[in-house]
């Protein structure tokens, strides 16, 4: 059963009275105990997707189409007061920047205990006990004494552990991790990802792992969704994506990955950059950087082609009936 399913989601931004589609018809799902990685370069809409699910969009943005279903409950139109009971209780979130994600004037213990009191109704003493247990669980040494420490007394990696502890405090069904290791030292990155894996398995949580690091995807995700310019361009199991990427963007991404078994001089980069939201191409949004652009890519947004295995889908004209030959070319 899927913990999260997103159907045909469109999130729009209104800038200067004009509506732009920041997310275009996104569909994906995360099953219990599964990690779905969302990859793509900066500005592709990964964080916008996370914020749409959380109901934390900035005031200029809104979900204008589609559904977000969490644990069989539709939440895309839920009121703020309903979302306050869902966030932290049913969905936990870990952020990219642990140095600024914690309130500098509250003790870390207090910050972990707060959702326990809010959502589980624990007393002050119970919450404190549970918070210390959580700190131990995320491997913060001397948890009981560090309950009263302030964030500035922690290193980046330790702070990220605190953020993780407060995100999983109420045993959420879904954990959204938005670039959880990007700001950390390489040695700490691995530990944090392993910790997230352990907590996900143990708590049977679904995890939406947002990252731009394909190495992270390979090591820690079950399935992967590739995003580009607000479109979900390809979705497949990790194995399949690495073996046979279908979308030109996914192929380019994988080609830009350094590999020990290849000559480094082959390392490719993708020319150009993600177009800004206000001048997105009308048809396929990858068109300016795509080596296979065709006539109809200019005028029509591509439709989704589903591969043989059902689990593999790609949004590209190359793969819609008769485009197959061109794809090999």
């Amino acid at each position: 059963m899927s913990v999260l399913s997103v159907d045909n989601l469109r999130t729009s931004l209104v800038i200067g009275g004009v509506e732009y589609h920041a997310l275009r018809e996104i569909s994906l799902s995360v099953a219990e105990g599964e990690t779905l990685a969302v990859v793509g370069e900066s500005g592709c809409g990964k964080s916008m997707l996370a914020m749409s699910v959380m109901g934390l969009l900035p005031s200029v943005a809104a979900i204008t189409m589609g559904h977000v279903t969490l644990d069989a409950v539709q939440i895309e139109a839920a009121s703020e007061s309903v979302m306050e009971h869902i966030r932290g209780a049913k969905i936990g979130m870990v952020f990219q920047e642990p140095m600024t994600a914690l309130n500098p004037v509250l003790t870390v213990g207090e910050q972990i205990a707060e959702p326990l009191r809010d959502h589980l109704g624990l007393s002050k003493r119970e919450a404190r006990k549970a918070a210390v247990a959580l700190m131990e669980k995320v491997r913060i040494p001397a948890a009981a004494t560090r309950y009263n420490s302030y964030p500035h007394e922690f290193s980046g990696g330790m702070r990220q552990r605190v953020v993780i502890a407060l995100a999983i405090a109420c045993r959420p069904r879904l954990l959204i991790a938005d670039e959880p290791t990007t700001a950390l030292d390489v040695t700490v990155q691995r530990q944090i990802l392993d910790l997230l894996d352990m907590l996900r398995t143990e708590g049977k949580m679904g995890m939406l792992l947002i990252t731009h690091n394909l190495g992270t995807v390979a090591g820690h995700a079950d399935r992967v969704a590739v995003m580009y310019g607000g479109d979900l361009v390809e979705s497949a199991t990790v194995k399949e994506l690495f073996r046979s990427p279908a979308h030109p963007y996914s192929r380019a991404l994988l080609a830009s990955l350094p590999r020990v078994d290849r000559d480094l001089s082959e390392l490719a980069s993708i020319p150009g950059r993600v177009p800004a939201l206000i001048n997105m191409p009308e048809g396929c949004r990858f068109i300016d950087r795509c080596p296979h652009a065709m006539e109809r890519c200019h005028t029509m947004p591509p439709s989704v082609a589903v591969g043989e295995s059902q689990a593999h889908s790609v949004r590209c004209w190359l793969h819609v009936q008769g485009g197959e030959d061109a794809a090999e070319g």
Partner: protein
Amino acid sequence: MLRFAGQPLLTLIPTLLAVLTLAFVLVRIVPGDPALIILGDQATPEAIARFHERTGLDQPIWHQYFAFLSQLAQGDLGVSMISNRPVLSAVLEVLPYTLELSLAGVFVGVVLGVPLGVVAARSNGGPLDWIVRIFTLGGLSFPAFVSAVLMLLVFSVWLGWFPVISSGKPITDPWGRFMSLALPALNLGLVMMAYVARVTRGGMMNVLRSDYIRTARAKGVPARRIVWKHALRNVLLAVVTFTGLYFSVLIGNSVLTEIVFNRPGLGKLVIGALERRDYTLLQGLVVAYAVLVVLVNALTDLCYRFVDPRVKT
């Protein structure tokens, strides 16, 4: 705790010395010979010489300076040149009134200013924000002595709610003392309230955009608590800094308020001492003000350590 308080107190000493020296020099730069003012312009040269001798004004200036400092070190502010009363007791007699007024003014400024600023920030561009902004702009651009006269007119003369003359009520009459304090404190605090509201609003807008507020929202903290606990605690750092700085200004402003409301206090003493060229009293008053301001600054430093856990204790 001692180390806590000790360090800011140590830095007070050079500051105080500088202020005292300035006070000594300033008072002597003010034109006019006190002897002429006290004895009248018909005074004989002998009488003037006797006056100079009695008050130490015939001594060389550096001699006067060291005498001033050594007396001060023994807690002696000298004797008023005019009334022959010890300056220290004259100052201490009215100091509570000024302290009470300043503290009440700061209280009004913070207690009204912070919520106004928070409300404005929450409404951000909405009607409440505009009302607060216009109101605070009014508070900033309206001279305190005008508002003082208006308040007296409306609340004391027309409505009769408060006494017109807030003469010193003894501590044994707390209600009378409170009533005579209310209007002057409100008047003194209004401008500060406007500033505090603006500082709070600006700080709030910044803090509400920060990552840790997003974290708080992501864990489902109710909006009200996000504003009044998570955000406000951080905004208070700016408010404490501002309050510390403005306190000194407010102590200065209290002179005017004391005069308009005819309250006893340092303000009245200052005006009297200036008019009569009472060097020693004036000197003593500058010392009193300086000590107050320096103490307030030390107190602000201490407050900081309580409000911001990142300040090393």
